[in-house]
């Protein structure tokens, strides 16, 4: 299993009117083929920003000052004035946005969006495009009639799955999912995760970066977890290791703040994170390769 995506030295800064905010501070990460990399952290850690940079959709006031993305041997510069080719978006790296509720224009049917996405990338006839979409939808267990629906006619969970399918219509190499489960109830979450893993299995996409603050979800879906704190990755490694034997003080605090009903955990004291003294979190990063 080779390396799918190699992101190097990414630095993202928000140019606000006054002080500039460094959201991503010299981060490098790697995603292997067939892997789900979980990107965890609290609000403000920079994980969503990093996700959007890797998904090639960063825009002002967010500026990518430096960084490079290597996929399939092709290197794309991200920093400074680098122009990202439009066709990379959606077909090489694709995004699954937070809150699918509004991702489809309310006055258009789903099939319009499908058609727009497909014809923006290749010369394809409408019938062929819709046929492909129909095939994909039914393969993944959804009724073909969703194509004809307006967004307000679909339930929340359904919408999220439809958007997931649209995001992967072009079989992107990497899918960056930003909090895909946060707006869903638990059963919908399960269905969505199963669908994502099914898609990975069928090689619809070759790798996923799963950005979330929801640790229990990562435990079930991620192969590797990288924890971010204040714009940096403080620890990363295989899921089992990260959850059971975290080494960095921040990771320890993060993991222990999760309530789990399994019996063995009831013996462990919940330490939580101290709100005031966070200096111990500035310990050097620990990377388990």
């Amino acid at each position, binding site marked *: 299993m080779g390396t799918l995506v190699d992101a190097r030295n990414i630095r993202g800064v928000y140019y606000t009117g006054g002080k500039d905010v460094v959201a991503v501070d010299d981060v490098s990460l790697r995603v292997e083929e067939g892997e789900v990399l979980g990107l965890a952290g609290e609000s403000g850690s920079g994980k969503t920003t990093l996700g959007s940079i890797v998904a090639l959709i960063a825009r002002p006031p967010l500026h990518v000052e430096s960084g490079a993305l290597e996929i399939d041997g092709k290197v794309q510069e991200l920093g400074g004035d680098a122009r990202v080719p439009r066709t990379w978006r959606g077909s090489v790296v694709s995004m699954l946005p937070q809150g699918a509720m509004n991702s489809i224009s309310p*006055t258009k049917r789903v099939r319009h969006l499908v058609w727009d996405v497909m014809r923006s990338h290749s010369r394809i006839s409408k019938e062929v495009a819709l046929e492909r979409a129909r095939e994909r939808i039914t393969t993944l267990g959804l009724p073909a009639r969703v194509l004809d629906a307006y967004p307000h*006619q679909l339930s929340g969970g359904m919408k999220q799955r439809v958007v997931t399918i649209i995001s992967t219509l072009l079989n992107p190499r990497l899918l960056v999912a930003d909090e895909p489960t946060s707006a869903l109830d638990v059963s919908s979450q399960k269905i969505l995760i199963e669908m994502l893993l099914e898609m990975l299995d069928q090689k619809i996409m070759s790798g996923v970066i799963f950005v979330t603050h929801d640790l229990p979800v990562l435990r079930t879906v991620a192969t590797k977890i990288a924890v971010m704190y204040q714009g940096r990755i403080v620890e990363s490694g295989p899921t089992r290791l990260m959850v059971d034997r975290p080494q960095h003080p921040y990771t320890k605090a993060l993991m222990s703040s999760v309530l789990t009903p399994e019996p063995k955990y009831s013996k462990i004291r919940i330490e939580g994170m101290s709100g005031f003294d966070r200096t111990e979190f500035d310990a050097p990063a620990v990377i388990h390769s």
Partner: protein
Amino acid sequence: MALTKYLGRKLAWTIVVFFVALVLNFLLPRLIPGNPVDAIVGQIAAGGGAGGEQLQKIHEHYMQEFGLDKPLWEQFFIYVGRVLRGDFGTSFGSYPASVNHLVGQALPWTIAIQLPAIIVGWVIGNVLGALAAFKGGWLDRGAFVGSLFFSSVPPFAFAIILLFVVAVKGGILPVGGAYSFGLSPELSLTFFGDAITYFWLPFWSLVLVFIGTQAVGMRSMAVYELGTDYVNYNRGLGVRDGITIRYIFRNAMLPQFTGLGLAIAGLITGGLITELVFSYPGLGTLLFNAIGQNDYPVIQAITLLITLAVLLANFTVDVLTGFIDPRIRAAQSGER
């Protein structure tokens, strides 16, 4: 089908409102103490045209003519019956001219100015607003402030200034009226060529103000749309810009349509006053004169016409919105 239910409801509502307007139209002027016939007869008497007994006869004649001798509710039914037949009665001030005749003469002039002004203003205004939002930068700032100013100036104030600057001082365009003295309205090229010079100033004073309002509104809507999730998503999937812009335009236009329906009343009013400023022989001048003469039938006819125009415009807007926005029909028919 959801659409027909929606339209049916809107139509029923329009009819109800029109009826209420009819009642108001009939009732309100009759709340005055005193009697317009007394005023007319008083004028005749003051002019020394007739003696006591004759005045009596004239008084009776007018009372019958205007139906003022019957009880109120009976008058109302007569009134409604007449309106539905399109008969608006006889003018008090320009007796014995029929109201229909007076209004019929003035109406085409008003429509000739207002209809094109509204359409042109709406189209140009929205395009300008959308452009300003997309391009941003100096075009945006300049257009925004300019539009804000134009939209804040009361339409007649603008008309006055235009009249003064362009016609009186500049002498470029004629000062008032609809056509040159000596010509009479006919379907000929010469008449048209002449009338058009009188047309420009009132037309432009309406259009520019309307462009201002539309541009400001459209810009806000477009700016809002540019920040929405679906635009972001489209970009994230590599959809071509041209396609996304079309989505944005369509979504931003919806409230502009509704806004048009709401603004119609103000536009029409502004238009009527503008006619006054330019001595343009449309409904505005007619109304002005009628008010001066306490000519109730004419006043009532014009107010009813205004109400009808507004209701019609709103209904049309509702119909169009129903076609464009699927959510409206769904919400109305309880699909959600």
